[in-house]
């Protein structure tokens, strides 16, 4: 049986690539979010200002525009930085669309993660780190063993929301020229077969599948983060 008229294998591969874009972008967004929250809560004024500018700017513009801007500007910046080294070769360096998408989406949602982590860190009572320091743990150990696990409990619902939005944003990567993710496969199949409804429904089903899996995964994670509590 071929419900997708022979496009089943390419669709499945596209689904995997879409998931890969989303997961790589998530890793970047989480790292930027932690760094951003650290900067927002830091005693250093410039770090606070920089983080504030980052989150305000990003949250004020559409993701599509950000991805387009990032795609072209990152390309230019990279060529500018490398121009000395590459002076001999006339070749212009292209960031592959996969990584341009990952970086664009990751940077964009890093701003939303920053707000999530900031709130979560503030939700951990001060006494926790004071107690940790009082029993002689190093600052590093206090962070990773005392603060971080408790912070995670407060951050997970926000991370889940951001992840679901980030996952759907991967549909935009086909706009900047990724040619083998699920959305791009749907576009190509549509052009070939003239059956747009079928293939976009399949793409919708693919996204629903990914959302459903992540819902189940987050339920387990949240249960794990709540361990020991009521």
């Amino acid at each position: 049986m071929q419900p997708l008229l022979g496009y089943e294998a390419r669709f499945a591969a596209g689904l995997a690539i879409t998931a890969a874009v989303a997961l790589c972008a998530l890793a970047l967004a989480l790292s930027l979010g932690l760094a951003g929250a650290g900067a927002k809560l830091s005693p250093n004024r410039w770090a606070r200002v920089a983080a504030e500018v980052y989150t305000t700017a990003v949250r004020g513009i559409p993701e599509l525009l950000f991805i387009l801007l990032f795609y072209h500007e990152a390309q230019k910046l990279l060529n500018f930085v490398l121009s000395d080294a590459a002076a001999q070769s006339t070749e212009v360096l292209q960031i592959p669309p996969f990584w341009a998408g990952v970086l664009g989406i990751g940077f964009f949602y890093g701003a939303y993660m920053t707000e999530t982590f900031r709130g979560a860190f503030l939700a951990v009572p001060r006494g926790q780190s004071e107690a940790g320091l009082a029993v002689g743990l190093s600052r590093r150990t206090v962070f990773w063993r005392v603060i971080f696990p408790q912070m995670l409990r407060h951050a997970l619902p926000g991370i889940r929301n951001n992840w679901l939005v980030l996952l759907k944003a991967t549909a935009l990567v086909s706009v900047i020229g990724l040619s083998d993710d699920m959305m791009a496969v749907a576009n190509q199949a549509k052009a070939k077969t003239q059956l747009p409804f079928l293939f976009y429904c399949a793409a919708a089903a693919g996204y629903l599948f990914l959302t459903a899996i992540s819902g189940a995964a987050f339920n387990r994670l949240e249960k794990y983060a709540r361990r020991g509590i009521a």
Partner: protein
Amino acid sequence: MIENFAVVLQKYGTLYLQGLALTLELTALSLAAGFILAWPLAAALHSRRRTARIPARGFVYVMTGTPLLVQLFLVYFGLGQFAAVRESALWPLLREPYWCALLAFSLNTAAYSAEIFGGALKNAPPGEAEAAKSFGMGGMQIFTRIAAPSAFRRALPAYGNEMIFLMHGTSLASVVTILDLTGAARVAARGTFAFGESYFVAVALYMATTALLAAAVKLAERRMLAHLRPAAV
């Protein structure tokens, strides 16, 4: 850098302003249509009747679980696959990217808003509806006069975010050839090859609009939740 901005603005300044106007128009119309659709949906989400609850939950689950771009393509490209649609009286509208975008955005924001309003309806203090009932109000009257306004006030912060998300979401209209603000920026970028500068103009306009919208929501919150603020002494 500066010269590029000057060229972009000189050549495409009007296009940007027209794009901004179209972005605001798409946002306002979709929000209005979505708002009207969202309330019956919100009531259905937590209804005791299964025949109302299950379709409403299904609709919200699908609309919030799939990307807006897929929904837009399903309306814009997908509907034309069926001869019944192509021969219907609505085809002259559904052939136009503008109406397709409006339909997709309205249905999308209806689903997200229904989720927000539904949650607020469910969290209403039971005394409100009881008091209205003891005054002799009917079910519909309680909903439109007591439950919905009270829920809307509580939903306002979340709904304000949804309004901003939708405004940003309308940028996808540029993918189906509509010259909204993002569309104008893409035309300017292709026309001048000053990609960064062309997109930056749109970025600035989006940021300003976002800030205005956020301020308006804050103001509305202050006014609608005034009765919850501690009284001035």
